């Protein structure tokens, strides 16, 4: 959806990539995250943030809604898990396998579906996602473990650090998250990133300018799958286990929810959305078994107060504020 609120006040820098200091600052804050919340929760937030960064690139910056992103996340998780379990792969090799598998799948799904638009693409991607889920559940249960999930993944080490220990694991994931934040930032600044945003705003005009929109969207999908595959593989390293639910559509749904909560099309939106979502879920359930009620109510309030997502609305308000100050 194109935002028409911009018509009253001109906001030139609304979707521009952030300043470098924000990228580095975020990374430094992340380094201290385990001091504030529990390390496993912090690790999970980072893993989902990577997933969210990629998803946001597709939904927020390119304007393509994929409702089957669980397929890439889950396939990344399974590919890494299978490599660890059956091939005794090292951590980097397992992660690369996860990434490659997810990208390959995106190449296939993209080739078949990227021409369809809007809700049609969402439906086709959902169908592919569910197909993969049922494949892992039944026909392939000999290797995937069916509904028990993939177990018996050995303990993993990286450069003589045991990734079974919470802090080494956290910083391992944190460094990768830092790199991915940086990469995302560079992508957004590149001509390719500008193209993505141009398509989101007006695909017809971009086409008229001579750009091959299908190809660029296809690349955006594959890059997004890179993030999802990486996150999936890291999730396997983190859990030492692949639950079948990683492939289920609910994983995709959760991702959509997190991205919208944080603010699609904003740089820090995914991080914030993921953080708020997981933190609320984790914390409120400590106090009451009826946590879903409270979390749901809080989400409703957040969406009412921040219609563009937390980060989206904040950025908008901030930009508007600056415009007014400049006007004065």
């Amino acid at each position, binding site marked *: 959806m194109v935002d028409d609120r911009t018509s009253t006040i001109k906001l030139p820098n609304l979707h521009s990539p952030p300043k470098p200091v924000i990228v580095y600052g975020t990374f430094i804050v992340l380094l201290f995250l385990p001091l504030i919340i529990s390390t496993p929760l912090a690790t999970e937030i980072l893993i989902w943030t990577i997933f969210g960064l990629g998803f946001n690139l597709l939904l927020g910056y390119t304007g393509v809604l994929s409702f089957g992103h669980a397929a890439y996340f889950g396939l990344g998780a399974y590919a890494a898990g299978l490599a660890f379990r059956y091939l005794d792969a090292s951590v980097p090799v397992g992660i690369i396998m996860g990434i490659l598998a997810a990208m390959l799948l995106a190449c296939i799904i993209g080739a078949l579906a990227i021409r369809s638009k809007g809700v049609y693409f969402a439906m086709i991607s959902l169908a592919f996602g569910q197909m993969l889920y049922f494949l892992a559940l039944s026909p392939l249960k000999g290797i995937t473990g069916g509904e*028990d999930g993939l*177990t018996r993944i050995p303990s993993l080490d990286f450069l003589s650090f045991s990734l079974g220990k919470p802090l080494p694991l956290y910083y391992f994931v944190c460094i990768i998250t830092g790199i991915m934040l940086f990469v995302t930032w560079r992508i957004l600044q590149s001509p390719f990133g500008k193209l993505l945003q141009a398509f989101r705003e007006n695909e017809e005009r971009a086409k008229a300018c001579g750009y091959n929109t299908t190809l660029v969207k296809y690349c955006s999908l594959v890059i997004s799958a890179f993030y999802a595959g990486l996150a999936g593989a890291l999730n396997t390293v983190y859990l030492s286990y692949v639950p079948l639910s990683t492939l289920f559509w609910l994983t995709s749904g959760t991702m959509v929810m997190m991205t919208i909560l944080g603010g699609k099309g904003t740089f820090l939106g995914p991080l914030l959305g993921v953080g708020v979502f997981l933190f609320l879920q984790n914390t409120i359930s400590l106090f009451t078994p009826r946590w879903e009620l409270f979390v749901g109510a809080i989400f409703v309030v957040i969406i009412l107060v921040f219609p563009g997502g937390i980060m989206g609305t904040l950025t908008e308000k901030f930009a508007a504020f600056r415009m007014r100050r400049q006007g004065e």
Partner: protein
Amino acid sequence: MQQLRFFCKTGFLTLLVGLISVALLAALPTSALAQQKTIKYGTMHPLTGAYAVLGLDQQRATEMAVEEWNAKGGVLGHKIIWLHRDDELKGNVAIRRVKELVEEEKCDFIGGTLSGSISLAMNEFACKTKTPYMAYCMSDMVLGADQCEYGAAFMVLPYSASLAVSQYAFKNVGKKWYSITADYRWGHSLLEGWIWQSQQMGGQFLGNVYVPLGTTDFSTYFAKIMAAKPDFIVMNNLGADQTAAIKQAVELGLTKNMKIICTKTAQSTIKELGPAYNENVMGGMTFYWKLSSKYKGAKTFVDKFMKKYGSPPEQDGESAYVASNLLFMAIEKAGTVTDKKKIMSALEGLKYELTKGPEYVRACDRQRVQSYVLVKGKGAKAKGWDIADIVAEIPGDSIIMSCEDNAKKLPFINVKLPK
């Protein structure tokens, strides 16, 4: 620049608040709990999701066991600190929370869960972190090579439930049977048990339908079953699926011509079905509160639970209660709270009498060997919690295979399941 200041400000504030809370948290235990020695027991229950009622029952029974031990002065003079978390019946959430319990809260022992697949993942985590794990649910943990010395299972194995119920059915109800099986691994395991027993006892297997989880309309299946004219229908499902199936079977008048036998049922299912769970419907459980008229231990347990929470315990609560008690008994027997290996070997072969007759934890695979109870509904005659009568109690030793067979999943691995 303003943007930068804004982010620095919020970032700094979060950091500050975080640091203060960390400092406060760190200061608390040293001041308040320094005097008393403690051990920490962390459990996981599905307090949300499809089995929330049963999860709550587990949580309550664990609470009761911990309170009882703490009232006696704890274990070896150590007060038990009990923490519990909602696993939402989801594997990834369960592992995140159990990581928190062990890595952050420093729990010495873990327990719980109500899903066979989550218990497998938890067991693996327990093996890697060398934390004793008490599984409360029906699980294949001890089958195959999945188990290490740090896991113990306190509900019966899935196939044990089918062996117990089928033993009774083929002797007392009839030989011709038809089954409705939930289409996932647990359902398949139950069906394997039934088919094997049927071959041993000369049963006549007329057919089976696999039904996806969450099915609400069973009428098409029943038409097929009615035509086959079995003596009884076997239900290898649970929860809402079972409720819907029995309700429709009774409405269609099936129970006039044949019996319905649920391999596993639950008190809450019987209660929910009310008059539909009539005399022609039977179900298996590891524990039903009416055992209190047979065993003294059961009476104490049920009365106490009833008084505290206002309803009799489910089998899941009983399993939680026994598992927690046995953990503390094993610690006491081992004479140490720190040597986890010694505690686990103290659990092996432990004989006890808690909620049923004399029982034991099998030494070779740390599986609790217990009886299985078959109940019959009371239909319209049900009153309050008096909703079913016990028909039979099948002794535990007759429904469990040897450890050697279990390790190879024998004889069930050879059973050919129908398509």
